[in-house]
């Protein structure tokens, strides 16, 4: 086959693949722009009675938008806490040899192998007793169980690619450790911090089981709100699809910002 044919074939397959991936998302986005009767009444691709009512409801009805605020709150909290814990841990794993360091590192990773359901009951019980139940902090802490190991693993890879002689030079120059870490070392692993934060975000934003069990009213995340919209009159299709579309946006934004760092992470073999 001539190269132009090969190229045409490749493009076609790529197109088919992308269309197949995007179809449900596009379908959802278009559905969210139609009123309920319209959705149930006719099967059309393009909205006939175009309306933003569904979105208006979400942004004005507190039972909807607080879901987003709660989700954003515990996701950000989780990102900050996970990094705060993972950065020193990753530095220790990358720079020091101590008894059982490899085993500890592996054990940390095995935490991710357990299904969230395993931790559900003990965490639920514990948080109820210490008064954390139904707070964003509860979800953020529970998610750290999964995010800290991943963040440590990613950061350790980035840190180990920074030569140790930089640490030593800083010591020789007279840096104290905190200043060295913040001013010299962190800028060198910026990409790693970005990638680790991104993975924390991904997990925490999408995770449903722990988030649902550890909250009831005050800290209810958006995903939970969405699963509870089945009313006596049936499913509220328009609202659900609008909420779903809005849920995708933060993820898309975050991916856009960290895409270059992620490529670097792949090059280091840690993503």
């Amino acid at each position, binding site marked *: 086959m001539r190269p132009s044919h090969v190229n045409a074939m490749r493009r076609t397959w790529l197109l088919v693949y992308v269309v197949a991936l995007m179809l449900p998302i596009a379908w959802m986005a278009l559905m969210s722009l139609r009123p309920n009767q319209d959705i149930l009444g006719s099967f059309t691709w393009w909205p006939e009675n175009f309306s933003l009512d569904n979105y208006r409801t979400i942004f004005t009805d507190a039972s909807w938008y607080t879901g987003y605020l709660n989700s954003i709150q515990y996701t950000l909290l989780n990102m900050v806490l996970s990094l705060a814990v993972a950065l020193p841990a990753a530095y220790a794993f990358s720079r020091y040899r101590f008894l059982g360091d490899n085993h500890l590192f592996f054990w940390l990773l095995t935490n991710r192998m357990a299904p969230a359901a395993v931790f559900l009951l003990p965490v639920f019980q514990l948080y109820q007793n210490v008064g954390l139940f139904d707070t964003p902090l509860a979800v953020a802490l529970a998610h750290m169980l999964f995010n800290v190991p991943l963040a440590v693993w990613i950061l350790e890879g980035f840190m180990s690619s920074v030569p140790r*002689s*930089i640490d030593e*030079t800083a010591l020789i120059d007279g840096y104290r450790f905190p200043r060295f870490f913040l001013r010299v070392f962190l800028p060198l692993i910026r990409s790693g911090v970005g990638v680790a934060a991104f993975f924390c975000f991904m997990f925490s934003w999408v995770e449903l089981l722990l988030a649902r069990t550890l909250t009831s009213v005050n800290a209810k995340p958006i995903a939970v709100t969405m699963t509870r919209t089945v009313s006596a009159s049936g499913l509220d299709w328009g609202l659900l699809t609008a909420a779903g579309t809005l849920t995708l946006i933060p993820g898309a934004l975050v991916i856009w910002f960290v895409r270059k760092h992620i490529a670097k992470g792949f090059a280091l073999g840690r993503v």
Partner: protein
Amino acid sequence: MLELVGIEKVVDVEPWLTSVDLVLERGLNVLAGPTLAGKTTLMRIAAGLDTPTAGSVVANGEDVTRRSVRDRDVAFVYQEFVNYPSMTVFENIASPLRRRERLSSSELRQRVGEAAELLALGPYLDRRPDELSGGQQQRVAIARALVRETSLLILDEPLANLDYKLREELREELNRIFVERDSVVIYSTSEPVEALTLGGRTVVMHEGAILQVGPAVEAYHRPATSQVARVFSDPPMNLLRCAVRHGSIVLPGGIEVPRPGHLVGVDDTEVILGLRPHLITVADPDGGALEVGGELLLAELTGSATYLHVRSGESGSLIAELPGVHSHSIGEHLHLYIRPESLYAFAADDGRLLASPDQAVLSGG
């Protein structure tokens, strides 16, 4: 003054340094030796970056063995160019001053400017290290080490990763700087030529031990042992096992040569004779040289010389260094000429120097 007393370093049961005793005076001290000689390990211990397994480091009469490098007065230049990638060249050079001395911003600018001027970095102060060439990056690292006059300045093969021209240039600059300094300077190199051009006190190291301490020229002309002669010479000195009898030397092939004047005092025993590669010739204009025939195994061309590796029935393998570039074909039969008056003699048992040739002979070629 820095004293290293009975320093030993064992890493994973492998001895990297075995009982090193060394007093380093103010001025230039050159550690010379091949890779794995323990130069870097010794320097890291001297600086306080590593602690020795045994022994102690004494600086001006005070034991500082376990003191962190942060609390010592040290500057260190690595073989690979180590700078802070996220800071400008100015900030890189300024960093020891900012951390250790309280200076006004005009004083700071002046001090950094002086160091930058010394290493011709003036035009690059606003750039980041990764925007500079390798030579310039190493200059930045050196400037950072020189900006404060520390009592100990360590340079670990600072020129090894640079190309030939840059190396010559920087070496000259460094020579000038070392003379002006009032610190103990430790400089390591794997090239005997570099140690000879730098001058100063030379410490010849090999396999974690110190072989000889003294002026570079002394280590070159009067190597204490046959090992020094091999290590502190590039290409290494040829060593032949021979017997000395009455009035003559007997080479491995059985050839007898009359004993040259400087070997008269040597007892009649087995000895190791040393022969500098550049004193072997392929012609004998004056006569009186010893002729050795052999087969050419390898001819290496360097910039200005040709190394001939020759296997000879009588004396094993010899390396001859000829000035200029010559073409030879492998397997060719060659006649090499050795002048007996240029031979070194080492004891066969412990390799200590028994007799060395007259310096006039050596310089006369």
